[in-house]
């Protein structure tokens, strides 16, 4: 599927320790400024393939138009963090009755997550923690946020890629030491301890990527108890 960009959502089931389930949310619409590989002609081709696919594939959606164009065949929708306060998008996404993965924007205080959820009319929602803005081009994982999600019985996971940050076109003064795969173990273990049900990896080619093998290797080191949506 070379014309697809992929966000893999690694969702672990309690009785499948060694084979965590992997969901795929596809980027079929161009929504990143630094996406040099986007091919306009591939949208229809992607939609055509998705309609025929029997896999549990979702779609990253950034507008009402995009939701409308995929709601009949997507298995779930993935809403990026910068849209988490856009009321019309949340309402439209929930009207599809599809399961939703909604990123918590890095600008949103954790205690405002409930207000985000108030805009959604069904409960098939997983919140994706992307970290909190900590200076330019840097998101940090605030465990207080995970605690709040857990205490409010919200199913949640963590976007590991957003914590790593972008390799290209970052704020020029960003400390390079903050971009290290070595931190992933801490993110995963810390998130798990506080109840994370899944992890998201952004496999967009010209952003950073971590191989699925590496993540599975880390996940095999511990068990997961929660169910995903």
């Amino acid at each position, binding site marked *: 599927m070379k014309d697809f960009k992929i966000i893999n959502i690694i969702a672990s089931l309690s009785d499948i320790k060694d084979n965590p389930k992997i969901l795929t949310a596809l980027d079929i*619409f*161009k*929504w*990143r*400024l*630094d996406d040099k590989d986007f091919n306009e002609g591939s949208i229809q081709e992607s939609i055509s393939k998705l309609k025929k696919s029997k896999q549990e594939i979702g779609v990253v959606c*950034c*507008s*009402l*138009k*995009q939701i409308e164009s995929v709601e009949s065949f997507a298995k779930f929708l993935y809403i990026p963090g*910068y*849209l988490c*306060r*856009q*009321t*019309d998008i949340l309402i439209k996404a929930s009207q599809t009755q599809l399961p939703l993965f909604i990123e918590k*924007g*890095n*600008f*949103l*205080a*954790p*205690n*405002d997550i409930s*207000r985000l959820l*108030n*805009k959604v009319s069904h409960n098939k929602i997983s919140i994706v923690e992307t970290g*909190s*803005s900590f200076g*330019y*081009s840097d998101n940090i994982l605030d465990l207080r946020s995970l605690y709040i999600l857990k205490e409010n019985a919200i199913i949640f996971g963590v976007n590991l890629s957003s914590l790593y940050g972008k390799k290209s*076109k*970052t*704020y*020029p003064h960003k400390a390079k030491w903050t971009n290290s795969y070595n931190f992933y173990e801490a993110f995963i273990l810390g998130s798990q301890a506080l109840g994370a049900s899944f992890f998201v990896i952004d496999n967009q080619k010209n952003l950073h990527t971590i191989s699925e093998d590496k993540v599975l290797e880390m996940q095999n080191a511990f068990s997961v108890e929660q169910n995903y949506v």
Partner: protein
Amino acid sequence: MFKNNWNGKISENIFFSPHNIVIIAGPCMLETLELGLEIGSFLKEECKRLGFPYVFKSSYDKANRLSNDSQRGPGLEQGLKWLSQIKKDLDVPILTDVHSSEHVINASQFSDVIQVPAFLCQDIEILEACAHIEDTVIQIKKAQWLSAEELIHSAEYLGKMGQNKVTLVERGVCFGYNNLSVDFRSLVTLQRQKYATIFDGTHAVQLPGAGNGKTIGLRDMVLPLVKAAVATGVDGVFLEVHKNPKEALSDPETQLDPSLATNVLESIARIRDGISKWV
């Protein structure tokens, strides 16, 4: 000249220019036509008295309220009718903001400036819609988590598609939860890249969500921050003004009442006039 050889023209008689500051101001939400006319008229007269080019601003749809219970405004159809009326009655250029690519097309028929909200400053659909409209200036607000360098990428994206009438706005940056600070380096970075640079004085003092789900703010900080921005160097200042901010349906703690707005405008004029003696 600004980036990509743009001459800074907003409308027939209103331009961004090196020795003056454009004032973009009006009520946060276009609650009623009467409010828009009253505030617009007041600001037009004050700006004329102080020698500022003036652009009226107001939103017809606050589509990203923190709380689902908060009012959004008159909506696209009614809002654009009112803005059109204000433009005609007051003979002022208009700025309004958009939250979808469809709204870009509708709003551009009535607005001299289309504003891309901060949260959406990297939204491809909206930017691409903005790239293809003519005779309308595109104003992009910098998101609270972005550096100036990253905002410039959005402007460059428009430039590559031939849209060279672009202004960029600093509106404060995340400083922990429920708080914003202003990094004046951003203004310098944006100006060095030759973009028309605006400072948003009333949003920069917001405390997002700090009021138990409502955004509150530090209105008394607007004047000092605006003075610092003007002294640093900007091409325009953006302010929200309401005849009675306590009764405003949005941003009641950051909008300026007419008296404070006059105070801010007079301070800007003093700094502008002082700087011009040195240039």
